[in-house]
Structure formats: C-alpha cells, structure tokens
C-alpha cells in the first residue's frame, strides 16, 4: 500500500494505492494519528487506486471519522471503485460517510 499525503489549501489530501487489508490498514491508521493530533479539520481520502478493502480498512475509516468529528472536522472519501463501494454499502456505512464521486466534488464538500 502506497500512501501519498499532500496539503491543498487547507485540505489534507491522502491518495492511497493498493489493497487496504489486515496487513496494510495499520500503516494508514498511523498516518491518521498525525491528523488527529494536529486536529486537522478538512481531510479527503482518494480511493481511486484501492481495489480491495476489508473490515480492518473499513474500521480504520470509522475510527478516523469518529475522531475527526469529535473536534468538528470533516472527512470525505472519494473515487471509490465499485468493489470498495459495495463493502461500504453492505456494512451500511455509505450513509454514514461522505462519499464523493470525484476529487473536485470531495474538495467542495469538505470546504463547506
């Protein structure tokens, strides 16, 4: 799993590449710790290059959403491939998360 992190205006943008599973999700969780510590309020994660996500990946996003919401921040996930979106849907988390179709839309959502 490759994790590219960059700042765009005031938005923290993560681009993930690879499979998000039991082996790789702890690495993403580590990256998110920095977001929580600095209380970064606008976070976008682009999942365009994530072909597979398991429950640990899902749980990593749930934990991130819980912690970011605690200080009134926003987390938006974007560009989910159908297989990944299905995992969110079956866990009924597609209504819990802000899911955008494009990065432009995600950046708008998080900036609101």
């Amino acid at each position, binding site marked *: 799993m490759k994790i590219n992190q960059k700042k765009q205006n005031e938005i923290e943008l993560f681009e993930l590449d690879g499979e998000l599973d039991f082996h790789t*999700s702890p690495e993403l*969780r580590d990256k998110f710790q920095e977001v929580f510590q600095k209380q970064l309020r606008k976070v976008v994660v682009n999942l365009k290059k994530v072909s597979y996500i398991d*429950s*640990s990946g*899902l*749980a990593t996003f749930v934990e991130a959403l819980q912690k970011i919401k605690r200080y009134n921040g926003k987390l938006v996930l974007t560009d989910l491939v159908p*297989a990944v979106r299905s995992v969110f*849907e*079956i*866990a009924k988390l597609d209504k819990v998360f802000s899911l955008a179709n494009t990065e432009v839309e995600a950046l708008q959502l998080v900036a609101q």
Partner: protein
Amino acid sequence: MSLNPENIVEIKGLVKRFDDRAVLDGIDLEIPAGKTTVIMGGSGCGKSTLLRHIIGLLKPTEGEIWIDGENVAGMKEKDMNRVRRKFGMLFQGSALFNSMTVGDNVALPLREHTDLPNEIIRIIVKVKLELVGLTGFESFMPYQISGGMKKRVALARAIALDPKMVFYDEPGAGLDPITASMIDQLIHDLSRKLKITSVVVTHEMKSAFRIADKVVILHKGKVLEVGTAHEIQNSKNPYVQQFIKGEPEGAIPFYQTSDAYLKGLLET
C-alpha cells in the same frame, strides 16, 4: 492438476469408507467462486460428511479436494490451518463460547489471527453485528439471547476475518421462518455484494431455491444431479422429484423390499 479459475473448490473422485461402507462413493464436484452452491439430500446421503472433508475435518479414503489451488486431501494439520483461514464456518449448533460475551465471540478470530489493535477490533465487531441485525448486543452473554440470535452471532464470527468462502451447515435449522429468511438474505447479500463463495448444506427446499446459484443433489454418497434451482425444480429424475416434493412413496424407498427384509432377518 490445474484448477479452473472460476472454481474455488474442485473435488475429484472422492470416496470415504467407514469400515466397508462407502458414505461418499466417487464424488466429482465443482464449486464456483463468488456464487452460492447448495448441497442437498436426504438424511444419510453424505452431505455433512462431504462438508467435513472440504473443511479438512475428515480425510478421504480416495480422491482429491482442491481448495483455492491446493489439494487438501493429504494435507498436514498445520497447512490445513492456513487454508482454513480463507473460510468461515457456520455450525449447525452455533458453537458459541458460553463464557464469553457476544462481542468477544465475534472478536475471537480477529484476536487469534491478526495483530489489529483493540479499538479497530471493537469497530469491526460492531460492523459485523450490524450486518446480522444485532447492533447493541456486544455485552450480552450467549445464554441471554435466543437460538436465532446465537446463529446470527455465529455468522458474524464466521465472517469476522472477511473469508473468501463461508460454509453453512443447515443454517435455517431450528429457526423461525422470519429469522431463517433473514439468514438466507444475508447469505445472498454476502455472495452478491462481496463475492463471497457460499456453500450451504441443507435439506430445506424453500431456502435452497431462494439462495442457490447452483444446486447439487446427493443420494447414497453420489452426486445425483447438478443444476440451477430452476433446472432442479424441473428435473425429470424421479429421485429428484420425490426429494424436492417430499413424497414418502416413490423412487427412493423408505422401507426395504420384503425379500431384502427377510434376507436380512435370516442372516446370521
């Protein structure tokens, strides 16, 4: 042998004898990946024995059992445990640990097989319990919930590690029609949305035809017929018709013939 990539399980010439009696008598079977295969048959047809072979609890007398590219027929226990991580199992009696809470039962495979932190495991447990309609039951003990709920907890545990394949042994047994139908819906959702392969052993016709992409009918340790639910329902095979209609009289005799009975009585 190379496995057809469309199949997650291939069984070739499987024979199991207990003493001289062949319980499985030359089974050839393919289980397609990401689909729901229902194995049906009357009591004693060998369906549970077949399931026990696939999950490695029994070793065949003859034949090959290929799972995800590996022949598990002669596999050592250590290697079999690695293969078993790819699949979840829903036992007929649920098999929950009575001394553990519902949440701890679901968390067990995650604690045993991963290094995930507790915070993440707790979230996964909540998601799995929501999937089976048991949100908020984490702290309940198994004795405090109904049989149907126990079955759902067992299903949450079976899918805790996101297996490629889930085996269900009589999933609707002992459940009320609504709960049984809900379990069927879950099996259906897991297969369709997550591409999990489901292998269901049952003799409940309604449930089988509701969920099956492929139906396999076993009779006397052999594969009698394979097809879609529609094909099986319209089968011309008198054994199949008698079985699916549940008729006491027909091609499958309930009692032996008078001659066979007499012969048996006179045998010393």
